[in-house]
């Protein structure tokens, strides 16, 4: 397990840069750190909306939403999600929101 330091905070992350303790360790500094490594120029309300929805969904359901559900609830087509998060909803948005790493046959 590695650690990342950003703006005076320390985070425990796995090799892929996902928070090992998930939302427990999540903070504004984390958002700022992920922004710096995931090709995001400026954090907008649209980014915030996606993060909030991901976190709410995860708290309620214990899993990340399917891409289709994320699109429906945010109202953003997948294309827009990639414009906001160049690595996509999994590697980009879920990482920033502090959700666990996507698994399965990826």
């Amino acid at each position: 397990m590695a650690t990342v330091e950003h703006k005076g905070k320390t985070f425990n992350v796995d090799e892929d840069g996902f928070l090992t303790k998930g939302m427990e360790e999540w903070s504004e500094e984390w958002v700022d750190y992920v922004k710096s490594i995931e090709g995001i120029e400026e954090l907008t309300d649209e980014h915030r909306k996606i993060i909030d929805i991901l976190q709410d969904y995860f708290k309620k359901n214990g899993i990340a939403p399917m891409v289709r559900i994320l699109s429906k609830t945010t109202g953003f087509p997948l294309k827009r999600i990639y414009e906001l998060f160049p690595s996509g909803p999994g590697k980009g948005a879920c990482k920033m929101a502090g959700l666990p790493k996507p698994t399965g046959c990826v």
Partner: protein
Amino acid sequence: MPKHDTPLMDELEKGPWPSFVSDLKRQAEKSPQCWDIVGQMELSYKDRMTHWKHGGIVGVFGYGGGIVGRYSDVPDKFPGVAHFHTVRLNQPSSKFYRTDLLRKLCDLWEKRGSGMTNLHGSTGDLILLGTKTEELEPLFYELTHDLEWDLGGSGSNLRTPACCIGKARCEWACYDTQAACYAMTMKYQDEIHRPAFPYKFKFKFSGCANDCVAALARSDLSAIGTWRDNIRIDQAEVKNYLSGANKANGGGTPAKGDKFDIQKEVIDLCPTGCMWMEGDTLKIDDAECTRCMHCLNVMPKALRPGLDQGASLLMGAKAPILDGAQLGTLIVPFIKMDPENEFEELVDVIEKCWDYWMENGKNRERLGETIQRVGLPTFLRVMEIEPIPQHVREPRSNPYVFWREEEVEGGWQRDIKEFRKKHAQ
């Protein structure tokens, strides 16, 4: 990186078949991290377990798939494979190459990765085995800018389509499988690179029922070439088979007896028994032919597919997880596969299917499982396909038949009081 002591792996350098261990060792002269691949494999052979960690999420900006992340769980022992990501490249249809392109790719891969490959992955991709996270973006830049080559698919998306060798080198191809494969790959780039599906989805294109790309077993949507008019018979060539001048099965399989026996090897083996000889003339009752390819396979010089060619579409094949293995189920018996109209009929089927499955498929539910869950009749209805006898091998044997309300006179709204007027308690 130093060599490791690998007595178990070394055993695999013996014997006549090309040894991947010898190849790895040869590559290690140029890419020393290959010693660590051999080393970690040796450890796995000894421990009888894998030494790769669970999962791995890496990629390039703009894409949600294409690269499979992988990390060693013994990175201190084998630093050369601490990161060992796999990069999937979309292969050219039927995997024809020119050496100049392969040379450029090898140069690039030796610079940015281990130099080890898999030609090819089961889905069809050309696979580059083993590189570090920081090499991914530069590798992708050079692949796209210098080699004009793109990544393949991974994740819950359209995976890299594949096809048989088709009209390039086969007289039985009933449509241009390469053209179809290429056209669908280009049309659905977005679906390949940015996962938007409930689960993975695969296309495969075979030119005839011999199905050399195993579309029936390994793709959610299989297009298998066929024809609907008559088998073309060259009676002169039939006589050459009878006389022994032509070898049965193209000489691939020796004749079963001393001499080719058309009765025993063709007519008696025809699954519908629709062939017979009149003197030395071969007759086929094409209305009863299921186009299984057997007679064509045995006598390729004498028999050819008809001229009214197209494809059958079968859907839903998958491996066992979760609820059992499936082969494709016949959905569309015949469509034309026409490059001129950009495979319009095929595209229509694909998009109807995706519209439904993307909306109704559960998380990680393959199309085949969705069809099982909602039932073939429902699936056919959403696909706007009339049910026909060809959709089943046999009719259902249980009587649990659903009717839709509009099909039943009077509907479902009944009043028990009305019933009691005639049937007192």
